[in-house]
């Protein structure tokens, strides 16, 4: 009797499952892979917020060509092999139509060469290594976010204006920190051949916790300018310890390539020093456009905070897919890919163009000087400097991408 009941339950559960699947046929499935656990899980959460918001907005206004968006999230755990498994699962088991995601450059470099095997378009919304739209580029992979070369080009333009000549860096000791310094130094040298780049730059280990030895060293070295590419929890740790040691009262200029990330500014509050040049991939107050104003208001209402750049990137990617599918009038992967090429998308970060040659978005860079403002709980940027994408994006030839 009991066994019979059990069998019946299982059969009915399976039947419900099948009927749910059948109902899901009228949807377009997006598979997203982000960092959802561990020390940097806050970035995955931000991305999830962005996708959720975009999907709900689009679904409320009729979906994409009449199909509702359904999204599935997978945790990359910050490891390339896990992300590759997740992508295969999303495509082969969950039958997603579109892919997006990736927070870490290391993960992106591992996953990008595998994407052609999956035959679905993949939009990268965070990982910034130039390689994925450069030497590793392929037909299926796009990036909608600002990459390292774009952001450091903007930094170099500011550095030239600041006029100081002796530069050093403090950056995390992995690809991102080293590449940031290499690109920043390279651009700055082109703009101003008299510049001297430190032969002994500082690369504290990633998640170092204690930066005091490095801070003491840089102060002792007496540079004229310091380019800082630390980010997230590392940057927060660094700034607090640097405050204690009087780092920001020294006689050098400071550029922080990811200093205007809202999660950093929120955590630091009034401990964020004023008068520092900081950059970000997206700044909520940079564009007075309906798209941005609507995004910031909706985000704030739903999640209670100013949107992080990672939310904006994910939000923009969902809208880019919508625009591409509507342009292609099809859900065929190859047609969506063709439509994404040379597509112009109106995003909260401004209008961007996805280049056909290397699939990198020509997108604006946002920099500004930190300032206290009684109307905001966090330091804001005033003045804001927007670098138009065309001024800071290397040419497709320079990117080193070969689609063939």
């Amino acid at each position, binding site marked *: 009797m009991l066994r019979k009941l059990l069998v019946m339950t299982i059969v009915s559960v399976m039947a419900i499952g099948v009927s749910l699947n059948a109902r899901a046929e009228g949807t377009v499935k997006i598979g997203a892979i982000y960092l959802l656990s561990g*020390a940097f*899980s806050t970035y995955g959460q931000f991305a999830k917020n962005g996708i959720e918001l975009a999907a709900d907005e689009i679904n409320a206004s009729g979906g994409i060509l009449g199909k509702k968006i359904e999204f599935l999230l997978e945790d990359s755990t910050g490891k390339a092999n896990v992300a590759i498994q997740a992508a295969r699962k999303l495509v082969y088991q969950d039958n997603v139509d579109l892919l997006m995601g990736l927070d870490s450059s290391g993960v992106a470099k591992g996953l990008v060469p595998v994407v052609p095997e999956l035959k679905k378009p993949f939009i990268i919304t965070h990982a910034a290594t130039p390689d994925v739209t450069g030497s590793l580029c392929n037909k299926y992979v796009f990036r909608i976010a600002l990459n390292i070369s774009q952001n450091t080009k903007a930094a170099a333009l500011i550095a030239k204006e600041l006029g100081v000549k002796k530069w050093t860096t403090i950056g995390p*000791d992995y690809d991102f920190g080293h590449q940031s310094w290499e690109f920043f130094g390279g651009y700055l040298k082109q703009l101003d051949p008299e510049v001297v780049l430190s032969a002994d730059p500082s690369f504290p280990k990633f998640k170092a916790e204690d930066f005091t030895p490095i801070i003491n060293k840089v102060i002792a070295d007496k540079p004229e300018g310091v380019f800082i590419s630390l980010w997230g*929890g590392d940057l927060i740790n660094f700034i607090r310890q640097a405050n204690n040691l009087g780092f920001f009262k020294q006689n050098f200029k400071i550029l922080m390539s990811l200093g205007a990330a809202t999660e950093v500014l929120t955590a630091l509050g009034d401990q964020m020093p004023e008068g520092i040049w900081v950059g970000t991939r997206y700044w909520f107050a940079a564009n007075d456009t309906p798209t941005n104003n609507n995004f910031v208001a909706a985000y704030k209402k739903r999640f209670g905070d100013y949107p992080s750049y990672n939310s904006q990137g994910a939000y923009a990617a969902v809208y880019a897919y919508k625009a591409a599918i509507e342009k292609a009038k099809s859900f065929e992967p190859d047609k969506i890919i063709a439509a994404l090429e040379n597509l112009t998308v109106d995003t909260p970060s401004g209008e961007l163009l996805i280049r056909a040659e290397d699939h990198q978005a020509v997108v604006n860079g946002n920099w500004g000087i930190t300032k206290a403002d009684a109307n905001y709980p966090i330091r804001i940027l005033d003045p804001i400097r927007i670098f138009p994408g065309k001024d800071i994006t290397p040419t497709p030839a320079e990117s080193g991408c070969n689609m063939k």
Partner: protein
Amino acid sequence: MTAFVAALLNSFDIGILLFIIASGLTIVFGVLGILNFAHGALYMTGAYLLLTLMRTLEIPFWMGLLLAPLGVAMLAVAIERFLLRRIYHRHPSFGLLLTFALLLIIDDTVRLIWGSGYHIVEPPPALRGAMSLFGVTYPLYSFFTIAMGILIGVAVWLLFHRTRIGKTVRAAALDPEMAQAVGINVPLVLTLVFGFGAWLAALGGALAAPMRTLGPAMGDTIIIESFIVVVIGGLGSFPGALLGALILGGIHGFGGRWLAEWNIVLPYIGMALVLLWRPEGLMGRR
């Protein structure tokens, strides 16, 4: 000269904090025979509990520093009573598996309660700012951490070597059956020792909170460093924890200044050398 003093202060600042945390790890191993993987997670819980006490309940830092580690110690007492106690007589790998599971559970619980964002804790007003010593400007709070570490080190040493409690604990560790036979309540001793180890971890977390960022998995780095400390110093040896912590602090303080590009591998090289030369650790017993 100033660079040397600065590096020395950095070494002590980093080393003493590690000593507080690692001593909890080594005491638990010495008495219970369990290598507690969840030690870093307890460190993190201490910091987050302090955050809640100060932010939500608006309790001053000093009270929080007292209460947060006690809260974590109580949690640890429950863990010992209901989970650890069941595996003492099993193969040591059970202890590793159980505490590793606890690490994952605590990490994710912290994320569920406090979210995945970053937080900071302000140092108390009396300890803000910096102080000059031999021409080096150094944060006042770091001097406080160093003083606290020395105080705790001396107190724990006296506790174990000069009091009846210490004798009881050492007896329970040395020969549990004999201790039980002469009337010592060994299970209670083990419970209290595990609670005490967790208290030290959480105290380290609460002390570190005003200098470091609170974020998910903040205990991951600390547990690795603590393992390095106890391997260098000798597993189960309390003076070894101090020596190991100061050596690792020195590697960070001086290495970070003059051998920065080697700083990731130096602690492991140090650990490997000790394992080759004295596998039982510098102060460990064979």
